[in-house]
């Protein structure tokens, strides 16, 4: 809370839900110390949330005995809610905070591959709205979704070595605003991999075949597209100068 113009909202989420834990928009005239400096009540609310989740997890298996295993945290849902809130705040008249809005994700779970399209949609609309997406990942492996998010929106991505390093990272880089970041020495690894993975085997490929109707990516040519079912007439190679396609080139 370096500046009284700052606005803060905190969402905490587990597998299939995301709960708003704190919302400090500076709108109430009688804002108590709690809504501006939420540290005390935040801890209480988060512990209560964790306890509720544990209880729900205990009672749930009886109900969902036949359901498939849960797919991990719904990152796209949290990002979508945050972006809707930011959209509303950006279009509100009067009292708009200056500087670029940002979303900091602190994540403990790994990427769910089913979330690729919704997460990319969220990243593109963040790009349009000039929202910076930052990430601190505490999982065992890098999250390629959040790496791409940070790269495309100009944010920072960290995977601290241990949970103890979390406070250091937060204090060093995320307390200040986006303009001040250029003055700080932020070393980012260059490991952003934009190569695609094929839809059939999930291999990472460097050249592939793209269906011209539904844009799904395959590593080998086939008779028909498995996503949209169109039968192909031939394979178009990329020869110089845009010549017309020849079958089986």
């Amino acid at each position: 809370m370096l500046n009284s113009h700052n606005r803060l909202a905190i969402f905490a989420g587990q597998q299939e839900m995301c709960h708003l834990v704190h919302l400090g928009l500076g709108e109430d005239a009688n804002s108590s110390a709690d809504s501006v400096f939420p540290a005390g009540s935040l801890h209480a609310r988060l512990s209560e949330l964790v306890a509720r989740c544990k209880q729900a997890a205990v009672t749930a298996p009886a109900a969902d005995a036949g359901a498939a295993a849960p797919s991990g945290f719904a990152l796209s849902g949290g990002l979508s809610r945050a972006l809707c809130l930011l959209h509303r705040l950006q279009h509100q008249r009067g009292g708009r905070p200056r500087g670029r809005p940002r979303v900091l994700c602190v994540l403990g779970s790994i990427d769910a591959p089913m979330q690729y399209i919704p997460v990319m949609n969220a990243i593109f609309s963040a790009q349009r709205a000039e929202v910076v997406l930052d990430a601190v990942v505490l999982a065992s492996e890098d999250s390629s979704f959040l790496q791409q998010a940070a790269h495309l929106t100009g944010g920072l991505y960290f995977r601290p070595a241990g949970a103890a390093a979390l406070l250091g990272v937060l204090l060093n880089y995320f307390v200040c605003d986006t303009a001040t970041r250029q003055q700080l020495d932020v070393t980012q690894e260059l490991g952003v991999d934009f190569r695609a993975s094929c839809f059939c085997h999930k291999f990472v490929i460097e050249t592939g075949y793209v269906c011209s109707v539904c844009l799904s990516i395959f590593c080998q040519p086939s008779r028909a597209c498995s996503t949209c079912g169109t039968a192909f007439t031939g394979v178009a190679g990329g020869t110089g100068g845009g010549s017309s396609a020849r079958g089986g080139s």
Partner: protein
Amino acid sequence: MSAVDRADDLELDGDDDDIDEHELRRQEEAYQRQYENEQTWDQLQEDEFGNLFVDKTAEQRARRKRLLSAAQSARIRKGMIRYLLLVVDMSRAASAQDLRPNRLACILGLCRSFIREFFDQNPLSQLGIAIMRNGLVEKLTDLSGSPEAQVAKLDAGKLGSPAGDASLQNALDLSVSLLRSLPPYGHRELLVVFSALATCDPGNVLDSAKACKANNIRVSVVGVAAEVYVCRRITEETGGTYGVALNETHLEQLLLAHSSPPPATSAQAKAELVRMGFPQRSTEEASSAVFVGLEARLLSGNYTCPRCKARVPELPCECHICGLTLISSPHLARSYHHLFPVPPYHEDSKERAEEAAGVLIRQPAMRDEVPTSTGSYCFGCLREVSQPGAAGQLHLTLRCGRCKQVFCFECDAYVHEQLHNCPGCEFGGT
């Protein structure tokens, strides 16, 4: 032009009392036509305390109707890889001043935002620009995939002033020669922004239209002046759309409607597997700069073609050595929302609310997060919304059919136009 004539008449008469009845009636009719939809006092309503407020629900309903038609075209095959030629009319009709400051300046500004929106929605596509002036058509830019170069050319100062006649046949012939040699899996389109009321051609324009149809080129026209029969014929024959703008806002809507992929007809494009490459990015350090691209510029951040290892400056592009189309996976992902659009939201009602309450019981953590006086809040932006059917409802309350969460009108517009994710459905909605 009629105002100018009228002023001349008044000067000749020189006497205010002599304005005849016919003239008065004409002016009154014109006034009514201009202002007939602006009875804004109808929108004022009173709530139970006698306070006045503006009821925005009617306006919001009208806007939602437009959004709905877009969302319902989910199951239609669309043209994802598009090659579009944009033709701007710079005949003398473009200097008319019914759009401020004149038609040409207004059109150029809107074309710039159209180009940016086009590449935003269709990253794999290519666009070229041409202008019609003095009965000829001049090509401004070649078909390419980068927006900035195209936008820079659309500067009124550099283009010169509008003059002469517009020739539709030359524009159609240019599009045939440019688009004929393109690969068949791409959708070929021609978009003409037409301000003139006539076309001045060297031959029969309908023959050129037949040639376009034979080459599978879809011709669409956005008119600025009035509906012209020959434009209607051409667009109907080739399967495009024709719209005439009523004012600047309407013109913007008509133009931007062309930025989303059009439905594909079976005659137009055959599905093919296109070979594409996904290059890796090199480091940004200044010490590792190399000569990049056809012009051999010295750059540090560049991409390496996976097939021939040549360096290209930016994506998406075609490798200048081996011709492989190079893209990155976010470019493809930008187009996926056309294939999986968000289903439209419905207006909330008491029955829907009760049905939803049964479903939402299963997610206790996502309710009552924000204190509200009406008891319900928008799931996206946490704004207070009124209960369905309550008196004095200020804004529409909407509910998603799948996840049963409540949304406000602003979030509905944002989700369906820009975000393309329903926040509620992401949390495992049925």
